[in-house]
């Protein structure tokens, strides 16, 4: 009963909007890439602070991580979105747009405006807290002996962390970290809440209102997400194998 006889028709009707699905997908990946990158930088910074920062800095990092992990993403998003309004800061942003045509369809893509900026920022701040925890785990697992051995050679603390601890920690973190990295794309749908960001879920919403075939639309979007996530985790697995330390 779920699938009617006109399944093929539905499918074709939804796929008729392939240009929208495609541009939505591009925007999703664009936001994902930035969020992952910024989150990683933030996470690395937080993790190092938390492990080597001394009482005050490690306390600050821990507090940040716990707060970000303890509150819902939606609340964080709204909080950040309305913050400039509350503080009376103008929130106009430069808008970056691009357009290209593919198979005779003109696709125009808004790459940066205020909602997209807020989305990327929220995701990075949140993802940074999670990535920090994974990175901290791997830094701790490298062990204090490595740091001591480096220091016994006369290397400074900073240089020991940079040349001895981090290269090992970054290799070790990949399996756990790929959980975060591979599943972050699906959190980009979050920006649906503030509206106006034409990513994949927004486009799905648009298509289902046009075609009145919600189930087919959402299933197609689900499949797109599944393929994306699976390929990212496969890629990370490959990287992990390539960077593995021989004999370990």
């Amino acid at each position, binding site marked *: 009963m779920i699938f009617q006889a006109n399944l093929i028709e539905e499918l074709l009707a939804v796929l008729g909007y392939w240009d929208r699905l495609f541009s939505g997908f591009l925007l999703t990946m664009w936001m994902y890439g930035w969020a992952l990158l910024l989150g990683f930088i933030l996470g690395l910074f937080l993790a190092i602070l938390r492990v080597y920062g001394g009482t005050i800095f490690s306390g600050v990092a821990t507090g940040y991580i716990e707060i970000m992990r303890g509150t819902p993403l939606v609340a964080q998003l709204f909080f950040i979105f309305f913050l400039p309004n509350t503080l009376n800061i103008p929130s106009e942003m430069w808008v970056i747009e691009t357009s290209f045509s593919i198979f005779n369809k003109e696709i125009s893509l808004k790459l940066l405006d205020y909602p997209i900026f807020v989305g990327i920022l929220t995701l990075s701040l949140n993802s940074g807290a999670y990535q920090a925890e994974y990175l901290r785990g791997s830094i701790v697992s490298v062990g204090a*002996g*490595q740091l001591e*051995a480096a*220091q*016994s050679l*006369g290397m400074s603390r900073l240089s020991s962390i940079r040349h*001895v601890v981090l290269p*090992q920690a970054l290799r070790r973190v990949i399996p756990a970290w790929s959980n975060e990295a591979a599943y972050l794309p699906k959190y980009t749908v979050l920006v649906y809440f503030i509206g106006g960001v034409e990513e994949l879920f927004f486009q799905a919403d648009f298509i289902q209102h046009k075609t009145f075939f919600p189930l087919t639309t959402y299933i197609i979007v689900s499949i797109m997400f599944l393929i994306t996530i699976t390929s990212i985790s496969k890629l990370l697995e490959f990287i992990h194998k390539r960077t593995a*330390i*021989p004999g370990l």
Partner: protein
Amino acid sequence: MDEPLLRIVDVWKSYEDLQVLKGVSFELAERDVKVIFGPSGSGKSTLLRCINMLNPPDSGEIYLRGDNITAPNVDLNAIRTRIGMVFQHFNLFAHLKAIDNVSIGLRRVKGLEKQEARRKALEALNRVRLAEWADHYPAQLSGGQQQRVGIARALAMEPDVILFDEPTSALDPELIGEVLQAMLDIAKAGTTMVVVTHEMGFARAVASEMIFLDDGVVIERGTPEHFSVSPKSKRVKRFLNQLDVLYGSHEKLLKLSEEEEGK
């Protein structure tokens, strides 16, 4: 020389409530090999870690060629380049090949060129007879080989003194010989060493002085002959007896090299 290479004056150290070192003093001249032994928990490892300032002592002074390294404004990193350390659990850098393990200090601390560092590292590896294993990762080496890389890592920095923290106690019996041999070789080549070990055979072969440490105090000191013939305190006698039971067999491992030298 008036000033000994290493002078340790009344070093005290405690971890929280536990007093580990209670005023240890000794001196070490150039080319000396000092063996420190004693029951576990007597503070031997802590003493070495104090000398390297990995755990700075609570009170007391340590002089390296006349420089007080316990003074507040000393550049510890510069001091540590002059004091090598070999760890009980090797602590090799797992992500680096043997040769890079040895050369990382030369490159990052001494600022040598890549080629120059590699040449020196190979030299050091050669001294522990591991040159052909240079391109292996630590996890691909046996425990004995790993420890020899650890020794080479310390050697390559050309330190004034090398500290050995129970270098053979984490090894399987059949691997101990090669490590002791490497230590023996560099000791005979004139390296100044402080060795925490229970290998009495090694001590007899090269030690210029042995120190028995118990409960954070030096109980007795003397030459290897002194300890093997007539140790004064009962505590030492009993301990040496126990060691004989446990480690006695390892002496054979070193016989060969002594004979070689005899020739």
